[in-house]
């Protein structure tokens, strides 16, 4: 029965057709578009070879986009990977009760729309009358204009994502933490191993495949989640100081209507993502191998 090739093909057909048509074909189109100059509506599309790429590399924007992207990554990894990692350890191995209560409450923001989160935080960060500015003024501090100040905007946007994604990552990490055999930890305690030693030599190695997964989605999806508050609250501003590698593609495509350059950015972004995912799977193989 396993030699009917058309049977699995039939079961896979819907998923494969949708993926080819709406994921892989667009990637090829991006490559094709990136060699052209076009504004998306005009009937004139001009082949210009590598010019979009040359402009992209020589422009000052690329450095800004990459450095913004790194700042986003640094903040998101701290709030949505390091903090939940430590806290999930506390929940799995340092408390003995109420862990389900904490999990269910902390997960709630993950069920909300990023559009909702953006509106809430627009009010919370309102520099004149919002709650944060009131709290700061009781301490005698002036509130910055969070979404309009180049030095605060990335932090403010990242905090929205941090708030919304924290609980989800916490739960995924918690699943890995509770899977660490308790007797391993007890045995180490009997030998008077320090907490740090237990954490470093038992918890970290055993949880590393899941940790790697959460680390990767924190970056891969984090950079996309920020698109919603970016588009609703700052449009990448002020003066492109909150844009990133993923949002810039949208800006060139749908705000500046420079389709060719948008496509060139899309190709670049895809290459960065693909490279990152390849490194991830190489690392994962190593970790899983090491574990066995």
């Amino acid at each position, binding site marked *: *029965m396993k030699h009917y*090739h058309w049977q699995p093909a039939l*079961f*896979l057909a*819907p*998923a*494969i057709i*949708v*993926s080819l048509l*709406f*994921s*892989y074909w*667009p990637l090829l189109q*991006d490559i094709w*578009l990136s060699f052209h100059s076009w504004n*998306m509506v005009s009937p004139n599309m001009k082949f210009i070879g590598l010019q979009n790429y040359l402009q992209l590399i020589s422009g000052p924007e690329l450095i800004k986009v990459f450095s913004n992207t790194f700042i986003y990554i640094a903040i998101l990894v701290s709030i949505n990977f390091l903090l939940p990692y430590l806290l999930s350890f*506390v929940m799995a191995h*340092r*408390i*003995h009760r*109420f862990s389900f209560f904490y*999990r*269910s*409450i902390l*997960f709630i*923001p993950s*069920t*909300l*729309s*990023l*559009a*909702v*989160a*953006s*509106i*809430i935080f*627009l*009010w919370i960060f309102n520099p004149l009358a919002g*709650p944060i500015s009131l709290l700061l003024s009781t301490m005698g501090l002036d509130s910055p204009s969070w979404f309009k100040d180049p030095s605060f905007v990335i932090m403010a946007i990242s905090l929205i994502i941090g*708030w919304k994604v*924290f*609980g989800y990552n916490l*739960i*995924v990490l918690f*699943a*890995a933490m509770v899977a660490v055999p308790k007797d391993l930890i007890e045995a180490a305690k009997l030998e008077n191993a320090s907490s740090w030693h237990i954490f470093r030599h038992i918890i970290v190695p055993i949880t590393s495949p899941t940790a790697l997964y*959460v680390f990767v989605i924190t970056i*891969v999806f984090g950079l*996309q989640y920020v*698109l*919603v508050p970016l*588009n*609703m609250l700052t449009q990448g501003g002020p003066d492109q100081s909150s844009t990133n590698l*993923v*949002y810039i593609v*949208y800006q060139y495509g*749908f705000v500046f209507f420079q389709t060719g350059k948008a*496509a060139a950015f*899309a190709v670049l*972004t895809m290459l960065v993502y693909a490279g990152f995912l390849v490194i991830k799977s190489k690392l994962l193989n190593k970790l899983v191998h090491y574990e066995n």
Partner: protein
Amino acid sequence: MKINKSYNFHWHILLLIVVLIELWPLLFMVSTSFKTMDQIFAATLNPFPTSFILDNYLRVLHTLPLGSYIINTFIVASGITIAKIFTSLIAGFAFVYYDFRHKETIFNALLFTFFIPITVIIMPNYLLISKMGLLNTPLGVILPQLADGMGIFLMRQTMRGIPKPLIEAGQLENASPWHILTRIMLPLIKPAIFAMGIVFFIDSWNQYFWPLLVLNDKASYTLPIALQMFISAEGGSEWGIAMAVATLTSLPPLLLYLVCQRFIINTFMQSGVKG
């Protein structure tokens, strides 16, 4: 082992602080939606309105085609959910039940689509959907999202857990693969499908970016997009109304979550175990 209570105490304090931080913005959303404009500015930090008013909600009802926004969102979310469940189920089945060439490659290629950043593919997809004449329709939003790499991954994981003898018993009786999938496997994995469906529904209910591009006509808006209307350049002044719409938008996913908590949390816990 004896549990030293004072040993735990500070960890609970820490966790409660985190709980407060996570709940605080939500509390603000809900309470602001019940406040008058005066209260919003005079008693910002008081989460409990001195007098509950429904004015914001009534004004939303009178000024917005709220009913059609809810219906639009519901059509988009349930269309995507049903399609994704079906395609993930049969694709997952193919990967578990059959052996064929390039199996791993095809699986990885499908899973990879899950990680492609949305902006990279929206431009060509937008052009395609507009060529098909599907702008401003729910179908235009749904069409590119009929399959889901993570759904296929989850279904494959779940079906791998079904004991082989059950499937072999079906084969001995000459049951067709479709019969084996729907009569033998499906009843066993219903909870997993249900949980996955809830997650798909919440995700597509909340969607913002792709619907924003496809739905330009105000009548075709979904709720998360309608929220955009309450943001003016200076941060908006209709806070009460904005928070009322935000609260209404959040209600369905929130209720679904509260009712099916255990299910959802368990599914999410599994989703990350083997990335």
